[in-house]
């Protein structure tokens, strides 16, 4: 059926999309403003000065470094655990299967503050001092679901007879994994991994509870939001964060494009 959309619908839909994008674009303009004391609009002038100032700020680099470390390690852990879980749930029906899928989704279905405060009180009870590892522990937990969602969809579409055929022809489990299963699920895993990375890279709510004195980049931003010190630097960092998170999302989109389930639908 090729009817045309009513004008009102078109306007509402495109207006909605603009509503989603204009605020983010606004930040790009603010990164170049010459005004440093307020959020004055329109900007009195444009400058590239703040990029240099930000580049020379050690605290920004430290926070960025910590964020990248945490996101990398959490992504690796989440990819291993999420894939294992997906392989089990997708391929067989067993007792407790529903419970496992619920358990995987729970850390992201419940508000982040609950995950955060639970972890914090558990660390207290276990007498664990806050460190990079306590942050990773939290991040990996809620990143599992992203990898799981992507992997489980792909496993369901990969026919089990392929694996049977491989084993019948004498391949070992390792060979089957390497030459049959991996090529089939690789792009889904990569997409899941990228999304997990993006999720960990800008997570703030759970992190405030598990970080102690350390600053990830989002925690650094939160500090600046609550108590602004140098607004233009925050503008530049915000713009860079937007650009950095766009890359993995576009990557995940192109990797899973054309398949019936596209990555990222269940954040």
């Amino acid at each position, binding site marked *: *059926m090729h009817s*045309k*959309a009513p004008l009102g*619908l078109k306007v*509402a*839909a495109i207006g*909605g*999309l603009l*509503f*989603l*994008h204009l*605020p*983010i674009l*606004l*930040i790009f303009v*603010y990164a170049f403003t010459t005004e440093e004391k*307020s*959020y*004055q*609009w*329109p900007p009195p002038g444009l400058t590239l000065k703040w990029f240099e100032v930000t580049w020379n700020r050690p605290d920004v680099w430290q926070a960025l470094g910590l964020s990248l470390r945490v996101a990398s390690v959490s992504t690796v852990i989440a990819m291993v*655990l999420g894939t294992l879980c997906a392989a*089990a749930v997708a391929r067989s029906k*067993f007792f407790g299967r529903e419970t*496992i899928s619920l358990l*995987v989704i729970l850390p992201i*279905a*419940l*508000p982040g*503050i*609950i995950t955060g*405060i*639970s972890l914090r*009180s*558990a660390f207290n*009870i276990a007498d664990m001092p806050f460190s990079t590892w306590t942050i990773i522990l939290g991040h*990996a*937990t809620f990143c599992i679901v992203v990898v799981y969602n992507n992997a489980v969809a792909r496993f369901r579409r990969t026919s089990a007879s392929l694996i049977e055929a491989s*084993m019948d022809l004498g*391949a*070992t*489990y390792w060979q089957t994994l390497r030459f049959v299963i991996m090529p089939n699920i690789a792009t889904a895993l990569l997409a899941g991994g990228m999304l997990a990375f993006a999720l960990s*890279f*800008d997570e*703030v*709510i759970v992190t405030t509870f598990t970080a102690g004195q350390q600053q990830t980049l*989002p925690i650094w*931003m939160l500090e600046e*939001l*609550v108590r602004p010190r140098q607004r233009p630097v925050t503008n530049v960092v*915000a713009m860079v*964060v*937007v650009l950095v998170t*766009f890359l993995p*999302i*576009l990557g995940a*989109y192109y990797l899973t494009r054309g398949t019936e389930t596209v990555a*990222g639908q*269940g*954040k």
Partner: protein
Amino acid sequence: MAKAARSPLSDALWRRPNLLLVLLVTPPLLWLGIVYLGSLFALLAQSFFSIDEFSGLINYEFTLKTYGELLRASNFDILLRTIAMASAVTIGAAIVAFPIAYYAARYARGRWKAVFYLGVMLPLWSSYLVKVYSWKLILAKEGILNWLFETLHLAWVLEAYLAIPAIGGNSLSVSWTGTFLVFLYVWLPFMILPIQASLERVPPSMLEASGDLGARPGQTLRHVILPLALPGIIAGSIFTFSLTMGDYIIPQIVGTSARMIGQAVYQFQGTAGNIPLAAAFAVVPIVVMGIYLTLAKRAGAFNAL
């Protein structure tokens, strides 16, 4: 043909799929069970303790006293306020999301389909804090929104609106309207995606049939499309409701000084050191979401996720 020598391990795994299954699920189960469920129970347990009002120490005896404190007027207000805000955000998000989802599901083709998909995906995944920050820029007194109203000579409209009690305030950035707008903006993509998923499943022939049988477009929308989109709307509302209820950063940055549940949890566990009360506050969203999920499951919302 010569039989390939396969390791005994491979053979064992092939013959006993259950062994493989156990090997697959054990690591993730251990992780989620210990790290996540363990922590969750640690939290729940604390809500049954109480705090000694004089010494400020935690009294490790089973009591329901802490839950009783939730009913105290100042605390109960926090609960009501949060649930009211979560409901308002959910309804607002459904209204704004529907046309986008409907257009994307039914009219967008080819290139436009991709535009709509990425157009929802990129804001969904871009940094939460950056999104909140952008609204701080927009709503600031010297910011773009006020500038817009002034340039259009409509500043009096804004002032009249801000004079309305409850939803107004000194400026948008310290009013409930401001908080509402930021919540709506940040969670909107979570509403669009499930509605779109449920609308994509509506066969166009069904809408044609409705039209052929004499329904006006408005009637088709009301009696055919909306009921079929309802599971998607409910699925989306799970996200918007839960996320609003647990958030403590948005109301802290944009809004009045009155607290929401998330802020109360944060303050009680932090500066106030009252972990039992913080835990009891945290249980409220869990219970509300539990009820919500049960109702949603009955309405078939999970098929639209």
